[in-house]
């Protein structure tokens, strides 16, 4: 909504910045944290992000031979989980706007010897460079929050989803229980300190905390998905709503 404002600004954490600046600022954040990204995830989520990711992959309903886009795939956690599911006949495309993250992801996947059906690309989620109706599943995990124009990204994802396909959005969200919300708020204030200690960059994690608070809540995001054209949209609250997985479908025949 704030994208429609006359000054053409958007939020970067709690700050208002020019629309064209946000991608670069987010880029800097991820350049800076790419190498220690996985370790920080473990620290911040106390290891639970692995279970959440596994649960998200379950919701993908993928089978051998399918094509899946791991958007904002970063260090390749999801690609590694998708790869055995779609098998040698299928394809996983790891796309991220940030070169450092793709590099770390690609190296990691190659080191694990799982590169057979995974390809890599630098792509902006708002203008995905693929043929329309390509992917049986598009998954964006902890990425949508950082996109400047979320609605444009959802529209682009809808276009790339094959008829009958689905989109999965895993993102931080709004805790359902206010008490849990308070506890989580207190806990998340520790992240910049942990970030400073581990990656030497506390500011990036300050942005992370702020961007989580600025991200649309469950119902708003669901509405945005419906606006993009997705049907049967639903969301699963994970850990009391700290995270939410939104699932949307593209009709099989239109």
């Amino acid at each position: 909504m704030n994208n429609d404002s006359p000054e053409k600004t958007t939020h970067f954490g709690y700050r208002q910045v020019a629309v064209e600046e946000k991608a670069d600022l987010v880029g800097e954040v991820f350049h800076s944290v790419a190498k220690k990204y996985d370790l920080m995830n473990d620290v911040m989520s106390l290891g639970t992000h692995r279970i959440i990711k596994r649960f998200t992959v379950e919701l993908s309903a993928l089978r051998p031979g399918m094509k899946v886009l791991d958007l904002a795939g970063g260090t390749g956690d999801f690609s590694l989980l998708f790869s055995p599911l779609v098998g040698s006949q299928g394809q996983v495309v790891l796309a991220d706007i940030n070169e450092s993250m793709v590099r770390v992801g690609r190296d990691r996947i190659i080191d694990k010897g799982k590169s057979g059906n995974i390809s890599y690309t630098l792509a902006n989620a708002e203008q995905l460079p693929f043929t329309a109706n390509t992917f049986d599943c598009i998954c964006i995990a902890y990425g949508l929050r950082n996109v400047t124009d979320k609605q444009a990204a959802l529209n682009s994802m809808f276009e790339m989803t094959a008829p009958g396909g689905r989109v999965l959005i895993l993102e931080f969200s709004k805790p359902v229980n206010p008490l849990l919300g308070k506890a989580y708020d207190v806990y998340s204030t520790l992240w910049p300190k942990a970030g400073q200690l581990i990656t030497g960059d506390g500011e990036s994690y300050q942005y992370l905390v702020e961007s989580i608070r600025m991200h649309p809540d469950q119902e708003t995001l669901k509405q945005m998905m419906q606006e993009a054209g997705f049907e049967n949209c639903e969301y699963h609250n994970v850990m009391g709503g700290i995270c939410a997985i939104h699932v949307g479908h593209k009709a099989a025949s239109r």
Partner: protein
Amino acid sequence: MSVTKLPAASPRPLTKVNSIFHSTIYSLIETGLNQALSLDPGTRKQMESLSGKCIRIHCQSPRLLLNILVCEQHLSLSANEALQADISIKGNASALMKLLVTRNTANLRQDGIVISGDVGLLGKFQAILQNLDIDWEYQLSKFIGDIPTQFTHDSINAAGRFAKKTRHNLEEDIDNYLHDETRLFPSEAELKDFYKSVDVLRLRVDRLDSRTGKLQSILADAISD
């Protein structure tokens, strides 16, 4: 317990079946299964022939949904009902466990198991999993070396033989004690003798019975004459 099903019941959402808790449990089982499969390349190769097939196990009490998807040489477990299954097996926990343990599929209907879809797939899947033959010795030797493996193998075999022999001896001793020492039960020879004399007695009684019958009929004839 059994409730008559309404034919046109509206489909109930299964979102509760699909939770992060199930996902965690399935993840652990999946790792174990794939680990076992990785130890038997033969079975893994066979599994490839079923790649892309999905078996759904739908337990009604307790409510549980399990999809077993064959992805080339490994298995993927999930609780997502959106995944299209090739075969669906519905039943309660005990009946499903019975199906898992035994290969007897003759009285599935009696056990309340309903199977829909490609039934042949179930047979193939069962056959592959039951042929799982893991060469434990080879796997162990990779970690601890050949000689310790041989030693472990011999020790386990010796322990097995000792256990078998002990069990046999114990059975024999108990038998002797009960039959010969306390004489609580008759011995087999005595029992045979007893059964034999019962048989002889039965034959003699039968003969006597037919004889009296015959005499009675003669007497009846004489009186009537």
